[in-house]
């Protein structure tokens, strides 16, 4: 194996930087063509419904179970800390704010990337490697409209709803632990939540996060599938990239959004 000279190493670095910029440009054009190109083929409403089922409805079990456990754990941990100050009734407030502001959209985003994002990439990559996308093109149907657009929209629509369901189930789980198990007074549990949760600051800001994460995760997933090398190794690599990039994007964007929304408080 021959050692690379310094110049070659710099050239290599430059080339990978160019590759990254190129991929970003391709993904932006890809999004533009998908969203703005001419009308779709066939009954696009039906296609959308089918995708909402496979992306959204089939993700429900993992979202519900995770939401339940996270809510239960939050209540348990919160109770243990708050009880030493004698303010265990504030556990309702703690759980609701944590879920609505942060964990709801973030954990849903991560789970969505792992469950639906990877499946989207693998499915589209497989269609590419079996020439189904080329075949659509030669039939005169734009795969961006027929395959990509319904999946993209289904992701945009499903994920914020999943995040909302995650929050509801999480709060329900925390009530089970705090009220039914640990004996926090039910009235103050709900009252502390009601008095501290603000519609704009908490609920809407959390929902905005959900929408942003939905957009980014689904975009990454469908682009990686569409752009992958059409071999089984290529599909495997693209699926991994989807989960890694989407998870990092969710966490990074969460910090930026949190700074914008709550930074000046």
């Amino acid at each position, binding site marked *: 194996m021959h050692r690379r000279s310094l110049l070659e190493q710099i050239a290599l670095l430059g080339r990978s930087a160019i590759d990254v910029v190129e991929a970003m440009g391709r993904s932006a054009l890809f999004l533009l063509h998908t969203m703005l190109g001419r009308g779709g083929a066939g009954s696009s409403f039906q296609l959308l419904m089918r995708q909402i089922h496979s992306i959204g409805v089939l993700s429900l079990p993992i979202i519900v179970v995770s939401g339940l456990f996270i809510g239960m754990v939050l209540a348990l941990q919160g109770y243990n800390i708050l009880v030493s100050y004698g303010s265990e009734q504030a556990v309702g407030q703690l759980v609701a704010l944590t879920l609505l502001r942060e964990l709801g959209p973030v954990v849903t985003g991560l789970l969505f990337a792992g469950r639906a994002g990877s499946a989207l990439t693998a499915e589209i990559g497989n269609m590419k490697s*079996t020439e*189904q996308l080329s*075949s659509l093109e*030669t*039939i*005169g149907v734009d795969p961006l409209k027929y395959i990509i657009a319904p999946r993209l929209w289904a992701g945009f629509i499903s994920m914020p709803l999943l995040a909302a369901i995650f929050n509801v189930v999480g709060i329900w789980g925390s009530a089970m632990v705090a009220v039914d198990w640990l004996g926090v007074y039910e009235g103050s549990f709900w009252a502390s939540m009601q008095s501290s949760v603000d519609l704009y600051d908490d609920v809407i800001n959390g929902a905005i996060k959900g929408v942003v994460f939905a957009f980014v995760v689904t975009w990454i997933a469908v682009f990686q599938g569409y752009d992958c090398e059409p071999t089984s190794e290529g599909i495997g690599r693209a699926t991994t990239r989807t989960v890694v990039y989407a998870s990092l994007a969710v966490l990074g964007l969460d910090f930026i959004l949190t700074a914008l929304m709550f930074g000046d408080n």
Partner: protein
Amino acid sequence: MSDSNDYAVMLKGVSFKRGSRSIFNNVDIRIPRGKVTGIMGPSGCGKTTLLRLIAAQLKPESGEVWVNGHNLPHLSRSELFDVRKEMGVLFQSGALFTDLDVFENVAFPLRVHTKLPDEMIRDIVLMKLQAVGLRGAIDLMPDELSGGMKRRVALARAIALDPQILMYDEPFVGQDPIAMGVLVRLIRLLNDALGITSIVVSHDLAETASIADYLYVVGDGQVLGEGTPQDLMNSKNPRVTQFMKGLPDGPVPFHFPAPDYHNDLLGRR
């Protein structure tokens, strides 16, 4: 222009690169209308790339690709989708939509591009499947079909809209002798019965030569030879002769470039 009446497809001075590797260098190819034209050459010489250039799935670096009087590299994305309706492509894997059954696969182009009532779509699909001998498989899913059957269903789908040009990408690869015979017969039959222009990209010499009216042999990014199968058999070009006669050694060497064998064995590089 009169050329566009005689020739369904014309490539003029087409060059194409993949990265820094040149696949085609100033290639001229003319596909006569209503005939079966074979494009042959060794594996990896860019035959499928050529097909994708004609189907406008790839853009040439330079040169013109004329299909039915349209210069494809100059068309917009939506104009391209319109021109593609005049072409059918049979991919190597068949490329059937795995979530649709045989009927829906063949009906797909009709549903997308026409407003025909369901009964008429059903009749057309039955006729197309009858032509490829698979009317009985109408309710099966793609994963229930053999490789040869998949290709025949894909062929039925490719002719659903009665295209003027039909392209076949390696139609004979991995087929048993019976399936191969069926495909050879179908390609010729469809060409003559529907009056379409067929382009068969293949390295299966005997089968392609048996149905093609005209052949191109490509390699090294160029057209090495062209003519009727008989012309090419008698060609004086050593590259064409090696390919047509299947000789293991010749201008295309048997050995991949390597250092001297003797020195290599003695560990001297």
